[in-house]
């Protein structure tokens, strides 16, 4: 908070830069966030799993002569375990952080102090949101670095396609964090937003199913089935679809200049950013009217 105080102390009375205030909020959110024991616990667990993947794969059968043939079952398993670990622990960290930044400040009444500064609510929210992203990026970067090293020691190659996998993973986290953040603005406790965040993650991965429901309803004759199909279609288009980011699992096995991959990454980046803004706007609409 001293950083925030210092920032506002330097500013002329009643005036604070458009982004200076949010940046100060973001920095203190980041500093407080990385000290949380839960986050450190998740990070340690993910490190253990990443390095434990070598043990899991140590006793696998290989075909006769495959060590000369360059069988890479072990490397493949390590990559998949690491990607999955990063996904699971990363999303848990994301949900936990996103769900707690605002409610914890409401609970311990720090928010009154912050909002008493010449800072608009949207700036406060933007700063908090930015702080969450800094924490997520840091954790993702750390886990990604460990993954990078694990593969480098195994195969003596630098898995540069991993960077794209991490980007897509981050975009998925961005969507989850923005919507969880929006829910957290309604609550003074972090329990509801945490559960909501998990729910958002699950629903996001099941949205693809709605497309199947719509396709299959075309074969049905009953009116109710067709109505359900149409509802499914509307929901499919309205809800965030986290399955669209599933390319992150395959991307490390594709060639570097695979055209569909190159086409999709840009589109997914826009998609993730749009949903991030949607989450932020929803949180603004909720928070602007919140009685504190």
């Amino acid at each position, binding site marked *: 908070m001293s950083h925030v105080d210092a920032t506002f102390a330097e500013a002329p009375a009643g005036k604070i830069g458009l982004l200076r205030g949010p940046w100060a909020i973001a920095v203190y959110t980041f500093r407080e966030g990385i000290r949380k024991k839960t986050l450190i616990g998740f990070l340690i667990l993910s490190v253990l799993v990443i390095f434990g993947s070598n043990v899991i794969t140590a006793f696998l059968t290989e075909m006769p002569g495959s060590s000369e043939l360059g069988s890479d079952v072990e490397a493949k398993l390590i990559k998949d375990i690491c990607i999955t670990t990063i996904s699971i622990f990363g999303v848990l960290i994301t949900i936990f952080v996103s769900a707690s930044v605002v409610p914890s400040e409401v609970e311990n009444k720090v928010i009154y102090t912050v909002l008493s500064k010449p800072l608009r609510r949207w700036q406060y929210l933007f700063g908090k949101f930015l702080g969450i992203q800094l924490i997520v990026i840091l954790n993702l970067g750390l886990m990604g670095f460990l993954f990078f090293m694990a593969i480098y020691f195994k195969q003596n190659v630098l898995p540069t396609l991993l960077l794209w996998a991490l980007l897509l993973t981050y975009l998925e986290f961005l969507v989850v964090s923005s919507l969880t953040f929006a829910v957290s603005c309604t609550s003074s406790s972090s329990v509801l937003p945490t559960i909501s965040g998990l729910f958002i993650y699950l629903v996001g991965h099941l949205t693809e199913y709605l497309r199947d429901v719509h396709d299959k309803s075309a074969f049905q004759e009953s009116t109710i089935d067709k109505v359900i199909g149409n509802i499914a279609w509307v929901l499919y288009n309205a809800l965030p679809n986290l399955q669209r980011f599933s390319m992150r699992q395959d991307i490390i096995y594709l060639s570097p200049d695979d055209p569909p991959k190159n086409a999709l990454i840009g589109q997914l980046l826009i998609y993730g950013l749009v949903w991030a803004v949607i989450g932020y706007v929803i949180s603004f*609409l909720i928070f602007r009217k919140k009685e504190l």
Partner: protein
Amino acid sequence: MLRQSAIPALVALLALLGLSTLQGKQIDRVRDAEAVYRWALAASVRYGVDEYLLDPDFLIEQPNLKDDLLFDQVLEVSERYLPDIAVAEGEYMSTGEPQPKLVRYVRADNQDKALWAMINDASFAQIRRDFYTYRRDKLLVSVSGGIEVSDLYGGAEGSAPSLSNVFLGFRKMAANLLWLEADKHFHEGENFRVIPIVHSVVTLDPHFVDAFLIGAWHMAYNATAHMSDTPESEKVWSEKYQAWVGDKETQYYEATELLKDGINKNPRNYKLYFDLGFAVYQEKLNAYDNAVRYLQEAIRYRHERFVPRTLYRAQQLNGQYEEAIAGWKYYLEHYDPENVIAQRFIKYNEALILERDAEKLRQEMLPLQDAFAQANAAGDSATAEQTKSQLDELKKTRDPLVAEARTIWGGLVEREDDPFSKMHLLRLNALDMTEEKRYWEAVYLLDNARYTSASYFDELSDLMIDIKKEAQKNGIPIRLTLSEQQQVIRKEKAAEAREAQHKWLDERRKKS
């Protein structure tokens, strides 16, 4: 604290939701186009290897499938859309025509962007729509990748969730856990539990190449290790494999199906072609033509150095000696000029060419020898003389070939004590003795030889049987042993069974 009106924010929210919907549709369009792109890639590779997408005999039983129809449309559009590229060596069909442009583009380096642009072009719109419709209606069996749960859970009436969703996007992890389970069963000796798990693994993770490779190895090698050979007369026709199969052959063909499925899903991984060509077709099915075909495909992609060596060996086994020599010479020139094995194999193939040509001449001589004997018996001296002069001509052409082959084999035996060369040298000597009617000596020579070189036991034993039969025809009473008589009966029964099989197939094709 200033309060702002909510209306701009609400408007922005609605606009953003609309934008997210549009962007989502755009992503779905790209993903759908990706499915078409990957199918076209896999289908082109398959077409380049087999010169068809689906086996014509398979289509007799499944006439509704749309793979060939759709692929023909793709070829037609690609011929118009894609710029011309040069036809490289090995890019010709068996009819002598160049392969379709699409196939050549898929095999060329750095042409993927052009293919992707074509798939997304307006001229491809109808093909994309047809693809989605046929795929939805399960009329495409050559579709690669992805998870279509209705394949597992039932037809269009079912409403089961996609496997990808059930695992919340962690299907690769599920595949890996199943793989560990399969490995456990293998170590416990339960090979038949491994195989269904392998199918599940590759369904969940179509890019798990090693699962295809090791799964095929389990099927073709481990599962069949304790099986007996099925006599030819007891083999049954398999609609699935379009072949006559016994217990072992069923497993071999299962392995080929698994590897071909792997190729559909990973069309540019050389390991799948290699295992299919070498490990299954060559080593298990003895189908050397298919072995050569798939090994030739393997070397088109980034591969290890042993792959072309295996190809040249397969060409030798398939009787393509000239191509094998060219291959080994290319290997010496580009990889390892001092490679002793390559030099030896060049000699092998040179000698095999000479033996082949000599054998052709010997086959031409056989009826002339009979005619000569008949003419002599009938007292027709004119015909006998004419026949004898033809025989002498052929012998004059043949003898130098045999002598040269003998020199090559002898040189290899002397320098390297090579068993393969030894076997061929002994074989040549035995044939010479047979020509000179020294049947007993020939049989004795081969009898010793086959026990010194176990790899060639069957080949030399068969030659012994042929020599004994020829001796009997010429009035020399060399009897076949009991095991040799059984071998003769087995071969005759197998030949009868194969004839019956061909007749059955011909009638079936005529009916269809």
